[in-house]
């Protein structure tokens, strides 16, 4: 049986088309609408909540089992969630079968089983007079989790650029330029020959010329040329004056000190003064990340100690008694520590010094360990804590950061994977830490901290979307940008109330369009997809599945 299941936060369409099957005798439709009373009380609407990943699977499983008993051709189920006003459909079921009888039985049994086992709830009623919001998204009445964009805005507002420093070019790679550098003079500073040949006056149409001098690349011998005079020049040689042209040596016949032009060409073969850069013109703007090319330009103009972002210090703590070093064989219940090398590798793209340490799982012991590392903690610009990021018994990241003086900005976001992401700030005008005696940070210094959910996939996602953005702001650069691409294959996932950053393999197609191949993962514990992921596709909340060739936003992760 062909099965299509959808959870939606929007009203169910008035008309749902049956599946395009060649043969079906019966197309049966059922709509369950919200009644105007609940438990004897008049109401204006109901709020539905679902466990979306499971609800979709469970509906599909029920239909597959029923199809064994009742031979039907296709089923389409749409369940609406969020606030649904009275009279509007909460559920739509369409069944295609050869004859009506089996379709009717299957529909009846399906509805009975749905009401027993599919994780969807009438969360609360809206009393009469309450005005249901149109569109009706998922509302729970709890403080809403920060969205991806809200989390990024918080990160940006708390991560001010660290004070700039002067650094020699050899140490400036990867840092962000914190000044705009202008050309101190024209480049080239004089007209230069781009060929081996003979410089003559541009207005000179003589038949033959006397060679009056020879200039190599290092020579600087200004002189005026008279009509009929030529100067032998090498590629790169500074020309003796302006208003010349260079005749390629291949186009000249030379006899002693005389030349005759045997082929005429219009090219001047000169790189003119200021052609590359004009004196005073901006070469590199503030905020530029210094790559090899940018450093070469700085070297060209002699700007050898540019003002750049400082190398910053990251202190990374792993937590959890269950992790063992990667070179050890885990006992049952243990896992190898992959987060240390993952974080170290991801930080390679940033000019920073990384210290890594492990914290014992016991909160008091962990605090004691931090007490021994006061200097490292004090010196760090950023503290990362792997694991222990949610509110389980042993998850102490939040209280630990608080004990170090950090104010927690957020501790959960509406994202999968990576929901229990913690972000804290220590010091600065906005942080509460400046008032706390226990703060280890020096006065006027701002530190930021992230508590990263323990699973490597969550680490990967949270690093790229949140930590990398924080680092970019701290060094005064640009935060990673989402780009536009197309799905190379269907992203076969049901609508999720959380926004998703879906691991994908990015390729540039022959048409120059970014194509994204979604990688398989089922939960944040999955790591296999990390082997080939180089992008994260942004799937909005309550949307799915996404068809092949759908336009999507993505974040490249290999830069």
């Amino acid at each position, binding site marked *: 049986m062909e099965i299509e299941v959808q959870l939606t936060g929007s009203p169910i369409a008035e008309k749902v088309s049956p599946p395009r099957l060649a043969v079906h005798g019966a197309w049966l439709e059922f709509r369950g609408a919200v009644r105007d009373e609940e438990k004897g009380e008049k109401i204006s609407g109901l709020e539905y909540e679902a466990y979306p990943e499971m609800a979709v*699977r469970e509906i599909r499983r029920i239909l597959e089992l029923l199809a064994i008993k009742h031979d039907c051709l296709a089923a389409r189920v749409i369940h609406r969630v969020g606030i649904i006003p009275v009279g509007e459909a909460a*559920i739509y079921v369409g069944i295609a079968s050869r004859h009506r009888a089996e379709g009717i039985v299957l529909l009846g049994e399906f*509805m009975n089983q749905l009401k027993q086992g599919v994780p969807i709830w009438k969360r609360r009623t809206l009393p009469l007079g309450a005005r249901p919001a149109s569109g009706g998204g998922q509302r729970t009445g709890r403080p809403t989790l920060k969205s991806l964009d809200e989390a990024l805005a918080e990160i940006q507002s708390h991560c001010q650029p660290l004070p700039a420093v002067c650094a020699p070019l050899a140490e400036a790679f990867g840092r962000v330029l914190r000044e705009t550098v202008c050309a101190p003079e024209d480049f080239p500073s004089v007209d230069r020959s781009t060929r081996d040949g003979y410089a003559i006056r541009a207005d000179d149409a003589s038949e033959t010329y006397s060679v009056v001098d020879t200039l190599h690349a290092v020579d600087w011998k200004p002189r005026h040329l008279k009509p009929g005079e030529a100067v032998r020049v090498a590629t790169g040689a500074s020309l003796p004056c302006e208003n010349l042209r260079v005749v390629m040596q291949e186009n000249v016949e030379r006899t002693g000190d005389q030349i005759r032009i045997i082929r005429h060409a219009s090219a001047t073969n000169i790189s003119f003064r200021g052609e590359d850069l004009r004196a005073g013109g901006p070469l590199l703007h503030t905020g530029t990340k210094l790559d090899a090319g940018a450093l070469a330009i700085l070297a060209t103009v002699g700007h050898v100690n540019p003002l750049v972002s400082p190398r910053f210090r990251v202190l990374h703590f792993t937590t959890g*008694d269950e992790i063992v070093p990667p070179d050890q064989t885990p006992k049952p219940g*243990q896992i190898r520590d992959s987060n240390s090398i993952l974080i170290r590798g991801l930080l390679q793209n940033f000019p920073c010094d990384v210290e890594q340490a492990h914290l014992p799982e016991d909160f008091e012991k962990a605090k004691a360990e931090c007490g021994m590392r006061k200097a490292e903690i004090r010196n760090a610009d950023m503290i990362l804590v792997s694991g222990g990021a949610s*509110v*389980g*018994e042993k*998850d102490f990241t939040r209280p630990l950061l608080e004990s170090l003086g950090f104010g927690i900005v957020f501790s959960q976001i509406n994202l999968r994977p990576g929901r229990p992401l913690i972000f804290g700030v220590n010091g600065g005008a906005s942080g509460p830490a400046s008032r706390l005696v226990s703060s280890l940070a020096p006065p006027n210094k701002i530190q930021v901290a992230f508590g990263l959910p323990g*699973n490597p996939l969550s680490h990967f996602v949270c690093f790229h979307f949140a930590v990398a953005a924080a680092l970019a702001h701290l060094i005064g650069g640009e935060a990673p940008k989402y780009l536009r691409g197309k799905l190379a294959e269907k992203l076969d996932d049901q609508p999720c109330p959380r926004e998703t950053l879906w691991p994908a393999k990015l390729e540039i197609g022959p048409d120059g369009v970014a194509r994204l191949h979604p990688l398989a993962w089922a939960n944040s514990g999955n790591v296999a997809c990390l082997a080939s992921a180089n992008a994260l596709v942004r799937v909005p909340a309550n949307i799915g599945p996404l068809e092949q060739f759908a336009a999507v936003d993505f974040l490249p992760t290999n830069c």
Partner: protein
Amino acid sequence: MLVLFFAQLKDVTGCDAVEFAPPSPLNREQLWTMLLEKFPGLRDHRRNIRLTCNWEYAEANAQFTNTDEVALIPPVSGG
């Protein structure tokens, strides 16, 4: 291990998810012990709660591990 709460259980626990890191796989009873220690209010609801593991109702002898997504499902009322 991510543990999710739905519907009225969110009101009981005050959150919709917690993460635990049990050192070894848990059976049903051990999982409940861990949950009740953290959220004693769940005790009154326990007999009406079904456990799921990775989006399927958990078998009686299920083992819940560190990388599982577990959910507590109170009586459903969809449709």
